[in-house]
């Protein structure tokens, strides 16, 4: 079923483009079909017995190069999120762009391309597959962030997102390659736990990849900028799914890096910093969408922290929060998009009072917001409860640090949630200018209700979460608890809600200050501009157009590469010569070659070349290769004749040699010559087998009907190669004819 679903997404991209040319709405509806099929399939998998869907498409088997997919429990959970929310977002987009929107092929097809890439990423079972789809999501995200590409600021934001996530992708690739080298397999499930220095380096590299994708401090600067995308994209990519890819990666890689201390310390440091800084950011901004974006950084920080801790309970809580966050954060983004469309602003200074004008939307947002704050009776409450229990259950200093961080982060979460709900829906001046759009309200309502239903019918989310957790960590046999009773975690939870909402109330009463600029984003842009300045000047230096310099550069590099051969050559096994005629011929050949190199007249050079050829012929005779000798003689004669004929057009003497270059050219050519000599010496003294002379002789006589083995090989055993050679010569002949004709017409 996996190839069918992926093919459906590919076909859907084409179909959405075609339909999008008629109208954006048609394109969006066509694009929603593949995610709908995928969602139905994934829900069906839930009910059937636990069996993993698997698919492998081989490319190069020996190198482990294959597209390999396997849908395990965690992947199934992610599939339901990616495709399920995908369907709702496509439906929502039809309302967002409105019935009057013109044709648009780009948006539906890129959004579907993202959806398919994300599925490939969560299904990936080999490091190559993982990396390829990881990059696909970065690229599709770039296209979607840059959707309104006519605005400068949008292009800059899109570029920032691409450069940061792209750089993280390279870091991830390096980490994966280290892992592959250590455990000698490219299959994710079979990679052995990393240890030692290599494990540490790989852990840091993979963490950088995860942190860039999941917008963790200090790489978080791209995410607020990505809010330049249309709101459906922000809801789908930059809150519910793509930014979860980094967290997903940490969940999958957690068992591999369980022994690397740096995984826990660096990962948790990153996560805690993001959790707190993101929370503060959400309290500072006045654009409702940016408040949510900073809140996403904060929530992702909590997720990263939980997966960095990696204890069974933390893993369980992480997955529960992953599910809950996707539901409530997507809802809130969808709500903000609707408010933006209907009131024409997202600035909280101009918003407020919407509970009266948009009561349904207000209810939907309140339910989602309470889930985000971790209040009962909602899915977010159970997830936050599990997270608190996980950090409170740690021991020693870890317990203190992680508990304080998570409690502080949760207080901030409650505070910015309160601020969001009060400033947008509470008392205020906003006026609604456009009529309600059901296509926008309904998807948000569905997701919000899912958060409530997940609490009431706790068995359904519990099955998803606990199965996925057990798969990652066999000891994670927990379940979601709807009403924990008066335990420590619950009391702490209530305290957080109380303190947080008071803090949020206090802050939302303050006068709204101007939006602070993001210095981090400025630095990131400056760095990217630096790259864009350095790269062309480097290119101009390396690729300046002089053929001789190219050849010299390549020769120098190739010569350096032959240095290792020095130790491979058995010097004592070398003879001075095979027969006495060899040194004599060697002197003739090399002497003629040197003479031809430095002689000033073209005729002299042609004659020297002929002398080299004759010397080679003689050498072939002494080497037991009469066919080669005959061919060489014939070829050399023709070349000398052709040279002399061609010289009629050319001047008698060569143009003067540029002396500034001469010394460098001689040195590099000498190095190249020595390098080739070393390589041939090493290769010829270490044969890997004996030539199959008897076989070739027998085959030649029986099948080819000839005794001259070289001839039979060329005309019979390898006849097709010879045919190719004839074709080459014929092509050359045609080319020469054409070139000669040009000359004649020019002259005429």
């Amino acid at each position: 079923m996996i190839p069918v679903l992926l093919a459906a997404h590919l076909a859907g991209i084409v179909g959405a483009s075609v339909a999008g040319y008629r109208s954006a709405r048609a394109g969006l509806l066509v694009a929603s079909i593949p995610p709908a099929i995928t969602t139905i399939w994934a829900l069906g998998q839930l009910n059937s017995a636990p069996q993993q869907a698997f698919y492998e498409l081989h490319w190069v088997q020996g190198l482990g190069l294959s597209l390999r997919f396997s849908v395990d429990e965690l992947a199934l959970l992610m599939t339901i999120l990616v495709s399920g929310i995908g369907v709702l977002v496509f439906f929502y987009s039809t309302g967002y762009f409105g019935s009057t929107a013109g044709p648009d092929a780009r948006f539906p097809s890129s959004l579907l391309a993202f959806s398919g890439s994300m599925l490939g990423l969560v299904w990936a079972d080999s490091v190559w597959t993982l990396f390829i789809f990881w990059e696909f999501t970065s690229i599709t995200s770039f296209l979607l962030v840059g959707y309104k590409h006519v605005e400068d600021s949008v292009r800059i934001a899109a570029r920032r997102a691409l450069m940061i996530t792209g750089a993280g992708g390279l870091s991830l690739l390096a980490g994966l390659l280290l892992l592959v080298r250590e455990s000698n397999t490219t299959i994710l499930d079979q990679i052995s736990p990393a240890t030692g220095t290599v494990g540490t380096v790989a852990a840091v590299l993979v963490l950088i990849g995860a942190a860039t994708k999941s917008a963790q401090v200090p790489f978080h600067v791209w995410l607020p900028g990505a809010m330049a995308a249309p709101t459906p994209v922000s809801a789908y990519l930059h809150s519910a799914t793509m930014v979860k890819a980094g967290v997903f990666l940490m969940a999958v890689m957690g068992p591999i890096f369980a022994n690397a201390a740096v995984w826990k310390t660096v990962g948790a440091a990153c996560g805690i910093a993001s959790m707190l800084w993101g929370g503060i950011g959400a309290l500072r901004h006045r654009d409702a969408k940016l408040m949510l974006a900073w809140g996403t950084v904060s929530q992702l920080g909590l997720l990263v922290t939980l997966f960095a801790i990696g204890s069974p309970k933390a893993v369980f809580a992480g997955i529960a929060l992953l599910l809950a966050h996707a539901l409530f954060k997507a809802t809130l983004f969808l709500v903000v998009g609707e408010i933006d469309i209907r009131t024409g602003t997202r600035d909280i200074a101009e918003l407020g009072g919407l509970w009266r004008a948009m009561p349904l939307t207000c209810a939907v947002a309140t339910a989602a917001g309470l889930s985000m704050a971790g209040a009962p009776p909602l899915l977010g409450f159970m997830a936050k409860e599990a997270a608190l229990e996980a950090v409170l259950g740690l021991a020693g200093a870890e317990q203190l640090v992680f508990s304080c961080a998570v409690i502080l982060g949760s207080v901030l979460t409650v505070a910015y949630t309160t601020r969001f709900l009060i400033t947008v829906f509470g008392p205020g001046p906003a006026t609604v200018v456009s009529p309600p759009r059901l296509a926008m309200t309904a998807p948000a309502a569905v997701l919000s209700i899912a958060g409530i239903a997940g609490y009431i019918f706790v068995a359904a989310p519990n099955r998803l979460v606990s199965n996925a957790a057990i798969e990652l960590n066999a000891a994670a046999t927990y379940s979601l608890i709807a009403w924990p009773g008066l335990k420590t975690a619950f009391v702490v939870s209530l305290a957080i809600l109380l303190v947080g909402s008071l803090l949020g109330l206090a802050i939302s009463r303050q006068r709204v200050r101007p939006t602070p600029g993001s210095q981090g984003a400025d630095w990131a842009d400056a760095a990217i501009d630096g790259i864009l300045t350095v790269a062309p000047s480097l290119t101009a230096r390396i690729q300046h157009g002089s053929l001789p310099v190219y050849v010299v550069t390549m020769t120098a590099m190739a010569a350096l590469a032959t240095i290792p051969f020095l130790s491979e050559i058995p010097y004592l096994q070398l003879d001075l010569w095979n027969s006495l005629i060899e040194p004599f011929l060697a002197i003739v050949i090399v002497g003629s070659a040197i003479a031809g190199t430095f002689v000033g007249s073209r005729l002299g050079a042609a004659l020297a070349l002929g002398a080299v050829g004759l010397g080679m012929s003689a050498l072939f005779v002494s080497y037991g290769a009469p066919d080669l000798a005959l061919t060489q003689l014939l070829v050399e004669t023709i070349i000398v004749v052709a040279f002399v004929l061609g010289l009629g057009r050319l001047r008698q003497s060569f143009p003067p040699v540029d002396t500034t270059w001469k010394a460098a050219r001689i040195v590099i050519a000498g190095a190249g010559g020595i390098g080739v000599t070393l390589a041939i010496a090493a290769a010829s003294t270490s044969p890997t087998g004996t030539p199959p002379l008897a076989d070739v002789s027998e085959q030649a006589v029986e099948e080819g009907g000839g005794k001259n083995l070289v001839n039979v090989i060329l005309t019979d055993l390898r006849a097709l190669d010879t045919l190719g050679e004839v074709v080459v010569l014929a092509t050359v002949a045609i080319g020469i004819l054409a070139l000669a004709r040009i000359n004649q017409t020019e002259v005429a």
Partner: protein
Amino acid sequence: MSIALLLTVGGLTTTGLYLITARSLSRIILGFSLLGHAAVLSLLIAGGSPRAAPIAGTAEQMSNPVPQALALTAIVISFGLTLFLLALAGRQQTLSGDDLVEDDLEDGRIANAQSSEEDL
């Protein structure tokens, strides 16, 4: 393995490389020919020591015929290449009055765009 042959390969490669870094196309052609000789000789050397000609049933110990077949192909192809380059040199002579290889125009444009900051 014979040091004399190895040195021959080295000498041919060195002179060949020196010549193909020249500006004059006819020198480059000479260089290609010399490099072709070096390649053919390398193939033969890599195939084993010299023995009797590889004619079935004439000798116990024969030279390895496979590298010889490859070398023959190499000779013919480098022959074709040399003739083609000669024709190019003739054309260059007719068009520009000499057979010099000029710097690549497109690459030069990239370099200039950097210094003048106008294009790109």
